[in-house]
């Protein structure tokens, strides 16, 4: 047997203290295979060892939550016996090393998390963060990631309905690719991963196992340096065709009652799927690796246990149902093999070529895995009012902002995603939230992903709150009742106390907002060590929110629809310019306090707006977020080229008013009589409300004085991305 040396321990990303713990738990020196298994199961990626203690503080319950965190994905009740199953997950490190395959397999992985629970995926979202546009790698990464997401999702026939794209220099060496999948199942047909009972066959389904992706989970738990690109062989290669077959075959098998438990083989492949299933079921698992379908010859036990080959699932069947299951997988031309059995020993036993190569207590891989209360150093949130040039022209600033990297249209991106397949996409990308009808009904799900990383560095707590509040607001703005979120927490190295504080404060902020807005967290993923050469990313806790609309015909959208509508602003405008898009794009500064979210007002304003939409009284709504009020109005004018004349009497300071990023605000447009009633009702409810003007014409007119043509605003807005990607324009550095 291989003697374990300190070098081997280090190469496996385990600390000395962790290795001592392994010796205690095993009561002997581990075998090389066992060391590999510990290495992946105790990695940050699989064990959440730095965040677990803090994640426990998040609210996870509500009457409509069927399954909270801990399973492959969270599940909520959406009425009539239907369930929505969703999760967001990162594939950051692989996507930086190999953007196409990294992003593609990220999409494949999150889809498996959802369909392994019995759901048919009905929508995909993604939250992408790239380095500054002028960085030499950015174009290549944008192009690779976008085509990778499209390449996988388009083949699967699941619409990719939206997401977000940001550029910032903090991501120059460490991009973020977070993919979210939403699926639909019947509540009585939800599959979990608990391998309950002894003597049941453990079956392997899907693609064959190769040597790809070995130690991917460990790679995802380390910082990058300049040599990281040499890690390319650890990035897996996706095969969406096989995944499509796997999806259909699994759903066909799930229609029978043959399955006890099922789990996809994601990070740490066969190791984590078997350990997690045994752990949750309170059983043991015995695997015979000779039975594993293999793509390459002479694979060792170590390689098979750690391979992250894609498009594979592990299931535990009721005894005697193997033939029935096999017939289904044969029909779909997929591999199927009985590779083990459940036991009552609570141990993971792995055999290869007649020898036991691993025999370890499963709890050592789960409950006994290390949990760290890592030290953190608080720092005061950035404060202060930034200075700015009060004489700058408002409309020319608007023109600049609309054609800036973070604000320009993402059409170039989402036109590469099939967003209308499945013929249920009611609101396509570009609005506040995507809306996907529940097939054959008039119900719909609204979906959004949100976070403003530029608020999260100066104030991690408020930034976390704001991410949740904005997701809630975006769902509200289309008329949906927000139900639950999945969070994808992207941060730097948790072993640095100042980064650990960003994580702790971020989670606290998310928790505070989720509690106040009745918007529980039902699952998620942490991606730490997002650093290159010691430089951390902006804290980026991406929030994926899902809401329900009972009657999709009442849906609101951003576009102005008629001339002569009164434009109403709901919510208070103090003119908060700190950390705003305006300050960054026009003044070139990232300064001041991040805006604070008053969660009570957030809820009150949102509930008011949602009721108007649900009652069919309002069909034109946009939340006010990045860029502020005038940007929101321009975004409402551009889709159909309907202009507006807006202004406020006796405005003290035009720039903060039009570009401040105060929270909890919505712009509504409604015909005169309705608008008058809305204003009256808002006042009666003590909601801050203002009439800003009227829609009409083909220009955006400010205070009856200056104006800008909608067509020319739109030209800048639409052209930035395609020009940037075709290399026609030297991009502005942010």
């Amino acid at each position, binding site marked *: 047997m291989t003697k374990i040396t300190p070098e081997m321990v280090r190469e496996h990303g385990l600390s000395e203290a962790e290795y001592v713990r392994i010796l205690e738990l095993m009561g002997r020196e581990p075998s090389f295979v066992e060391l590999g298994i510990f290495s992946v199961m105790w990695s940050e990626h699989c064990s959440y060892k730095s965040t677990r203690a803090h994640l426990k503080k998040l609210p996870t319950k509500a009457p409509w939550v069927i399954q909270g965190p801990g399973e492959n994905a969270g599940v909520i009740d959406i009425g009539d016996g239907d369930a929505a199953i969703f999760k967001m997950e990162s594939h950051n490190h692989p996507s930086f090393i190999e953007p196409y395959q990294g992003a593609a397999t990220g999409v494949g992985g999150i889809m498996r998390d959802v369909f392994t629970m019995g759901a048919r995926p009905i929508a995909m979202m993604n939250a992408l963060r790239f380095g500054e546009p002028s960085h030499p790698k950015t174009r290549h990464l944008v192009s690779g990631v976008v085509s990778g997401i499209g390449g996988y999702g388009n083949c699967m026939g699941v619409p990719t309905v939206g997401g977000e794209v940001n550029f910032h220099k903090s991501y120059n060496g460490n991009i973020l690719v977070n993919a979210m999948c939403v699926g639909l199942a019947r509540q009585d047909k939800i599959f979990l991963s608990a391998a309950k009972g002894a003597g049941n066959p453990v079956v392997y389904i899907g693609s064959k196992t190769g040597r790809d992706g070995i130690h991917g989970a460990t790679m995802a738990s380390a910082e990058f340096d300049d040599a990281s690109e040499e890690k390319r062989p650890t990035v897996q290669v996706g095969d969406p*065709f096989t995944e*499509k077959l796997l999806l259909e075959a699994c759903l066909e098998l799930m229609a029978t009652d043959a399955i006890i438990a099922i789990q996809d083989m994601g990070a740490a492949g066969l190791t984590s799927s078997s350990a997690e299933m045994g752990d949750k079921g309170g059983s043991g698992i015995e695997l015979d690796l000779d039975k594993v379908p293999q793509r390459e010859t002479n694979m060792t036990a170590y390689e098979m246990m750690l391979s992250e080959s894609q498009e594979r699932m592990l299931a535990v069947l009721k005894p005697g149902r193997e033939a029935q299951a096999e017939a289904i997988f044969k029909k779909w031309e997929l591999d199927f093999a009985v590779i083990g059995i459940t036991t009552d020993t609570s141990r993971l036993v792995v055999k290869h070529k007649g020898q036991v190569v691993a025999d370890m207590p499963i709890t050592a891989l789960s409950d006994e895995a290390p949990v760290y209360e890592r030290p953190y150093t608080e720092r005061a949130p950035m404060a202060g009012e930034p200075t700015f040039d009060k004489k700058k022209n408002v409309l020319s600033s608007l023109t600049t902002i609309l054609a800036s990297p973070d604000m320009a249209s993402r059409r170039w991106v989402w*036109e*590469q995603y099939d967003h*209308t397949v499945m013929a249920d996409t009611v609101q*396509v990308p570009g609005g506040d939230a995507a809306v996907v*009808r529940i097939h054959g009904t008039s119900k719909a799900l609204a979906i959004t992903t949100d976070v403003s990383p530029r608020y999260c560095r100066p104030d991690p707590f408020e930034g976390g709150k704001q991410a949740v509040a904005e997701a809630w607001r975006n769902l509200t703005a289309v008329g949906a009742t927000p139900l639950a979120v999945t969070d994808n927490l992207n941060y730097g190295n948790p072993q640095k106390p100042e980064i650990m504080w960003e994580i702790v404060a971020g989670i606290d902020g998310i928790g505070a907002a989720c509690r106040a807005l009745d918007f529980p967290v039902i699952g998620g993923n942490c991606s730490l060590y997002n650093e290159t050469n010691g430089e951390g990313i902006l804290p980026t806790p991406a929030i994926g929110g899902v809401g329900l609309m009972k009657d999709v015909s009442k849906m609101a959208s951003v576009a102005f629809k008629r001339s002569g509508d009164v434009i109403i602003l709901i919510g208070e405008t103090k003119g908060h310019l700190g950390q705003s898009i305006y300050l960054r794009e026009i003044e070139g500064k990232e300064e001041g306090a991040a805006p604070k979210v008053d969660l009570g007002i957030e809820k009150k304003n949102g509930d008011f707006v949602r009721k108007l939409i649900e009652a069919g009284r309002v069909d034109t709504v946009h939340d006010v977020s990045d860029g502020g009020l005038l940007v929101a109005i321009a975004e409402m004018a551009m889709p159909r080229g309907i202009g507006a004349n807006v202004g406020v009497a006796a405005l003290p300071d035009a720039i903060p008013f039009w570009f401040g990023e105060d929270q909890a605000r919505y712009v509504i447009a409604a015909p005169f009589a309705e608008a008058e009633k809305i204003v009256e009702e808002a006042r009666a409810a003590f909601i801050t409300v203002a009439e800003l003007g009227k829609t009409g014409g083909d220009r955006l007119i400010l205070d009856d004085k200056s104006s800008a043509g909608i067509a020319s605003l739109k030209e800048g807005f639409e052209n930035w991305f395609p020009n940037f990607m075709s290399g026609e324009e030297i991009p502005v550095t942010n």
Partner: protein
Amino acid sequence: MKSAVIVFPASNCDRDAKTALTQMTGKAPAMVWHQDSELPDVDLVVLPGGFSYGDYLRCGAMASQSAVMKSVKAHADKGGMVLGICNGFQVLTESHLLPGALMRNAALKFVCKPVGLEVNETQSAFTRGYENGQRVTFPVAHGEGSYFADEETLDRLEGENRVAFRYAKGENPNGSARNIAGILSEKRNVLGLMPHPERVVDDVLGGTDGRALFQSLIENLS
């Protein structure tokens, strides 16, 4: 109208086709698995969009060799109607039920968006419900939809009025020769087109321009 939808392993618009046909004809189509060599007795066979066998090689090349395609060819030879949408159009050219080929989009990127089309030919079972020259909007969603054929074939298609749909001026999303979006077979009983009429039969999805295509087929039989 009795219809069937062929299901290849990675077809992914088969359900959309089924939904549209059910909505328009009042009867659910038969869903026919690619390994079945027999077709049920139907008036219309639909080859749906998707990625048939993964399409890692030429799109539709493997599908054209599948068991079911022999029956589809026989159905077409007898004058039965065949509609190929997107990947279905690719399968039809690979099977030589229609001339030409679908190549990679000129911009080398997948493209999904609504595009303006002109109905170029109304003398067919598929298009008689439209006005000649009528402008309609169907979504496209493909990476390889650039229609190509030699000049002689293109001239012939145009001379025989077999170009059913053209991309409207400025709307060609893929670099197709002569803005061709959809073509008819010589006997005019087979239509292949890249845009998706089945995605525009429902008002809530942003348009109903695809309805007239299905309506034409129904009326043609009655």
